């Protein structure tokens, strides 16, 4: 079914790309590059890549709730901040790192669940209004609870020193940790949004009434998406602490939350690759504008944002499609603005129809 939507004219080139052996080789190559690159690159490049990883994960979390499920969330930075604070507190008090990591995922997830239980009862943009409150409450809260958060002076911890005997520099070790944790989160999320939950999210996003009529509770799936987004936000907070090694109330400021939303839209809404591009945007554009003229960064960033939105409404991830649009006649189902709710390029998606059948029964 999904294969059928692929353009008939997609001749040798794209079908060659679809071949499993080619895909696996490409994947293997990518893995090798990811493993080797940190050893060869400069310290600053590694640190930048690690930062991109941190914010790619944060954008990915936002994508789950906003891109895939269509619920506007302006509070993602709160969960990043919460994860960072939990990590900082755990490390400062000498907790086991694995336990700290688990808590840095769990506590934001629980917080997200509690917020979502209330917020998801509201319809449409009311959720956005509730999520706006999170960073606005978070900043003074972090200042007030100075016993846990260090107040407005923030908390510094450097716990990710490379293990003795590994022969790695700290920046290389940190990048590897980010790659491993971030990679796992990305793979899990990819499976999530491509499976039955992903399809449920897409239907909730598309039309809640239709979702209800199919036995998919919009409320439950909104809460689920929001909780997962918070959990992923917590993971990114852990990575934030690992790479940046400092958190303060400033981390949670509302402006950064808006920047995350902008990064998600620019990278590509409802897209796994788009989340990585969003992370790239979040980290690299300030560096780029700094290189052009440090006193005009805000202006230049605004200009870049507008240019991307005008030229690529589907985000950077739609760039290849936009480039080949002239040469290929894309079918209506795969228009650039249509979110790829049912991914058509996966090797395993041939079974999509049957899976949808079972899912419908499962929720009846």
């Amino acid at each position, binding site marked *: 079914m999904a294969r059928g939507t692929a353009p008939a004219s997609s001749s040798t080139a794209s079908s060659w790309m679809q071949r499993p052996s080619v895909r696996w080789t490409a994947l293997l190559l990518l893995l090798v590059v990811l493993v080797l690159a940190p050893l060869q690159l400069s310290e600053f490049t590694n640190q930048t890549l690690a930062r991109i990883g941190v914010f790619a994960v944060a954008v990915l979390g936002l994508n789950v709730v906003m891109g895939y499920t269509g619920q506007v969330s302006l509070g993602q930075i709160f969960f990043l901040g919460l994860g960072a604070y939990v990590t900082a507190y755990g490390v400062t008090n000498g907790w086991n790192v694995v336990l700290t990591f688990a808590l840095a995922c769990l506590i934001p997830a629980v917080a997200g669940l509690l917020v979502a239980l209330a917020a998801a009862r509201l319809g449409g943009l009311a959720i956005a209004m509730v999520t706006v409150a999170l960073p606005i409450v978070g900043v003074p809260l972090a200042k007030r609870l100075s016993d846990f958060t260090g107040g407005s002076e923030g908390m510094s911890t450097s716990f990710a020193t490379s293990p003795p005997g590994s022969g790695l520099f700290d920046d290389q070790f940190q990048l590897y940790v980010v790659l491993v944790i971030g990679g796992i989160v990305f793979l899990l999320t990819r499976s999530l949004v491509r499976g039955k939950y992903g399809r449920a999210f897409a239907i909730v996003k598309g039309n809640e009434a239709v979702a209800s009529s199919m036995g998919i509770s919009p409320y439950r799936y909104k809460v689920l998406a929001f909780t997962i987004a918070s959990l992923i936000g917590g993971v990114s907070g852990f990575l934030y602490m690992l790479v940046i090694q400092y958190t303060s109330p400033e981390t949670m400021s509302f402006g950064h939350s808006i920047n995350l939303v902008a990064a998600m839209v620019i990278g590509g809404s409802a897209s796994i690759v788009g989340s990585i591009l969003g992370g790239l945007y979040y980290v690299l554009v300030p560096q780029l504008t700094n290189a052009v003229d440090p006193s005009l960064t805000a202006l230049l960033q605004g200009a870049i944002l507008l240019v991307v939105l005008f030229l690529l409404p589907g985000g950077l991830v739609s760039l290849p499609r936009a480039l080949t649009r002239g040469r290929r006649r894309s079918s209506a189902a795969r228009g650039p603005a249509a979110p790829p709710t049912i991914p058509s390029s996966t*090797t395993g998606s041939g079974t999509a129809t049957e899976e949808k059948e079972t899912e419908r029964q499962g929720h009846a």
Partner: protein
Amino acid sequence: MNSHLRVRTAVRVVAGASALALMLAGCGGNSGNGGRSGDAAKGAPSPGITDTTLTLGITTPLSGATAGPGTCTVAGVKAYFGAKNAAGGVKFGDGKTRTVEIKALDDTYDPQKAKANYDQLKGDVFAMTAGLGTPTNRAWRQAAIADKVPQVLIMTGDPIFSDPKQSPWQLGFVPKYQNEGEAMGKLLATATGSHKVAILSQNDDYGKGYVEGFKSGIKGKDNISVVKELTYEATDTSVDAQITELASSGADVFFNAMSVTPLMISSLQKAQQLNWKPSWFLPSNTSSPGAILTPGGAAAYPGIYSVAFSKAPQSPAFAADPDVVEYLAALKQYGDYQDPPAFPHCQWSWMVGATLEQAFKKMTDPTRDSFMKALRSIKDYQAPLMLPDTSVNTSKDGQPAVSTVVVQKFNGKGYETVTEFK
């Protein structure tokens, strides 16, 4: 697609990749552990310095809400060394003459970006300096210690940067919040009549530091009593409620440790509406005559007191002062700052340049070590633009480079130094 086959392929891919990774990790391993810096031979030049140039790095907010003072922190030091470079350069303690270049990056007051800027600069610059902001400087404090990169003469009143035990590679420039608060408290303590004091402070280390200093300044004075103390949050958009409550206390002195410009203006206006007219004590960064006192209608009050250590270039009293004339000309020509400076940070940054030059003159080796030793040995240096009775002292334990301030009273246009409270 056969799922069996997929699993097998996946296993093979992962196995192959891990084997490769292990192999390569073994070959490509580095001998060193931890950070990459600090392995240079003793006495070898540090990064960012050659026989003819020295590069300084700055990360500071150049856009966003704090861009005004942030831009100043770059402009002053850029102007100072721009003028020096044009005159041939700075003569260093090792006998060589070098020009001093500035690399400044915008961090938008975001600690994360400040750390990124530091990571970007640290390999190319000799020292980091002049950056504004407590969280943005704290974000890379530990990294700077680990990398042994000087983070000196920065614009934050946070005491941690002036504690050599905790911060061996750091030194703050501006007075700590406590220094300022204490100076104001001591002035009030010179009063002979009895006074009732109301205190409003920002609920964070900034407000607490000021109040702590102020209270230690009036300690032991029975004729001065604190009748009411309230706080507000830095994120609050209005403090009308607090002002109303404080007004009802009948205090005749109001110590307002507030760092938010619009709130300060509205509190000056609100108190007038309530017909509450005490004498005000204000922190140095929210007492600008042009930006705060005039729009706030400060002329209605019997006295507005603040602290300072730099001459105000706008003040008619200093219009012909040679320091001020030279500074304003350089700021325009080399600092890319066309307007008359709206924030004292421009002047402070100029003094940072002068203080750095003192250290450069004393350092005997082109190393960061030698620079830090030289920087920590400056005594009673009267930097240009400094007010009488203030000086740069870098060897006082636990104190920033400038720890003395004088209290000044608003005279309708600018400030005048006063020695007693009337």
